[in-house]
């Protein structure tokens, strides 16, 4: 055969190890329909054969809020003068988005081993689809939060200083989704080899929630631990959200910047690991 012309014509070269940082954006774009179908599948499949169906998106945060309301009033946890229901709900829907992104993406490889073993498509589609479908869920819950906000503002006369920081909301969302995704793909990559992590994730996320000012304000933490707490990039994100929508909390551009930088760092590690594992995990899982 003549080997003269075909050198540059090949579209795809399968090699032992591709560059660790190369994200296949072209591939991701080509499979965008698959992404949306995965999102749709998650929705349709989750609430099939339930009576209340998608109403569960709303019932879950309400029930959790009620739980914390009861615990909060017994333990006398301060809420910075904000109606407790509103305060807890703000924390819970935000935290749930982050936590769901993290736990669901952390199962990417183990839960999809059957599909991954038979067909190739850019593996990153799966974690990204999880972030997207959780986003839809979050949006619905956010509308619920707004409804409560309006109710307390107009009918209960609650003092809620909504301010321009609320405009940062999309940025906060991106930061949160990014952190959830980044941690999720790191854990999912490591779980292929060390299954032990699987048991730690749910427990760890729960523990992390109590280390983050979700159901208590940062202001109730003593100064000694405040700095330590703000090392958690989620802390400033949630505080910033509360500051913007409820007028209480801790708003610091510096710490948001810190969140962003740490996100870039973690995402970098995540993508490197994910790319490495994507190529070899079928042999280790």
């Amino acid at each position: 055969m003549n080997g003269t012309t075909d050198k540059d014509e090949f579209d795809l070269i399968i090699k032992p190890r591709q560059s660790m940082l190369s994200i296949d954006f072209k591939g991701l774009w080509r499979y965008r329909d698959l992404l949306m179908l995965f999102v749709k599948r998650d929705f349709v499949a989750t609430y099939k054969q339930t009576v209340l169906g998608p109403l569960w998106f709303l019932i879950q945060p309400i029930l959790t809020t009620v739980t914390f309301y009861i615990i909060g009033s017994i333990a006398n946890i301060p809420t910075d003068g904000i109606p407790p229901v509103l305060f807890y709900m703000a924390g819970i829907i935000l935290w749930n988005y982050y936590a769901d992104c993290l736990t669901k993406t952390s199962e990417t490889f183990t839960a999809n081993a059957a599909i991954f073993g038979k067909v190739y498509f850019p593996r990153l589609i799966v974690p990204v689809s999880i972030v997207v479908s959780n986003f839809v869920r979050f949006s619905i819950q956010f509308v619920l939060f707004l409804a409560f906000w309006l109710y307390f503002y107009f009918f209960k006369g609650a003092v809620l200083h909504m301010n321009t920081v609320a405009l940062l909301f999309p940025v906060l969302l991106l930061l949160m989704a990014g952190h959830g995704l980044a941690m999720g793909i790191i854990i999912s990559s490591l779980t292929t080899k060390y299954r032990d992590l699987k048991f730690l994730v749910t427990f760890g996320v729960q523990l992390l929630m109590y280390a983050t000012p979700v159901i208590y304000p940062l202001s109730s933490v003593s100064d000694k631990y405040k700095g330590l707490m703000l090392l958690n990039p989620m802390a400033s994100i949630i505080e910033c959200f509360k500051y913007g929508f409820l007028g209480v909390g801790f708003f610091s551009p510096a710490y948001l910047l810190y969140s962003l930088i740490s996100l870039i760092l973690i995402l970098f590690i995540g993508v490197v690991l994910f790319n490495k594992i994507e190529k070899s995990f079928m042999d280790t899982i």
Partner: protein
Amino acid sequence: MSDTIIKVEGLGKQYRLGQIGTGALSHDINRAWHLLRGKEDPYLKVGEVNDRTMKGGSDLVWALKDINFDVKRGEAIGIIGKNGAGKSTLLKILSQITSPTVGEIKVKGRIAALLEVGTGFHPELTGRENIFLNGAILGMTKAEIRRKLDEIIAFSGVEKYVDTPAKRYSSGMMVRLGFAVAAHLEPEILIVDEVLAVGDAEFQKKAIGKMKEVSEAGERTVLFVSHNMASVKSLCSKGIVLSNGSISFSGGVDESVNAYLKDGNDEGMTEYKVLSDDRSAVSAEVEVVSVGIKAHGKEYGDSMRMDEELELTVTYNKKKKGFRLDSTIQVKDNSGNYLFVCTTASADAETNENAEGLMENKLLLPKNFFNADTFYINLLMVIDERAVAVKLNDVLSFTIMNKQLKIGAWMGKGVAPLKPDFKWEITKK
């Protein structure tokens, strides 16, 4: 014209044997420590052959080694080999499910791999929704699927249930739907594993027909992996034989199938054996020199088909005169069940008793008697119809192939090991 569409160069893939996971962390640390000091990977021993019957020194093994081949546009290539020869590994690398350890593959155009039908089907989704999901997983766009939706549904033959959740489907319906989607893929390169072995006869006929159509159009390249030599022969024009992780033969499909069978059938035993070194083949009265089975009029190592007469030969050295020596064969099926016994006891008595020296007994087995399957033979040398001088268990194994089938004929495995061509009388009443 040499329009190379796939070019495989120096491809190799290494696996770790034994329990994966245990000791992984310590291996990782050890490996990192070696690499850090600029030494070579202590777990990467090059040059070991993958033979599952031999225990290697290292627990890392090369599942594929030094694979080089080119595929040209429009070719249909059959990849054949024993279990564990590396077929599936090669497919997995080609379809990018796992990456090679060394070497590279260059590909022109889109690859779709069909290693399973109905990948990613979700039981809660309806047939229609699953068509979209499965199609997208295999690389189709939504618009493409929508365009072919009616065709896919018609091909699957499950129109009635297309809006029913897939969990209510029978397994056969799942397969039909899955294949219907896959059959409507339009990649330049299609990789097919033994998925055609599923489904009922009618569906197999449809599937093979569709595959044939696809490859004969000339624009599409097909790589087909199968154990079924008949389907390989009917679909492919060329063949690649894998053996212990390397290519042992490549060429035309007929030669490849023959080379594969010569290489030893599934159990790795040859059809011709010289037994002069085997002490169990020797007694005070007789020494079995060789045994062999082949198709009548063909060479040892050639394939044997159902519609060919078989010739079994026993060569032995009778050391003394004055006693009767009979050879008896016991034929067993693949699972070791005895099928029949056949002995020379009825043959000419006089010459037998007075014979001495090198002898040859030849048995002719009629055509259209064995079904397409693998068989085993025990050989007994019996003195005066009472004492066994030599008994050789499983001395031969041989595989009978299906006769040339019409395209679209059923290619599954028969239920019985024998399929004798007894005479039917068909009359109109």
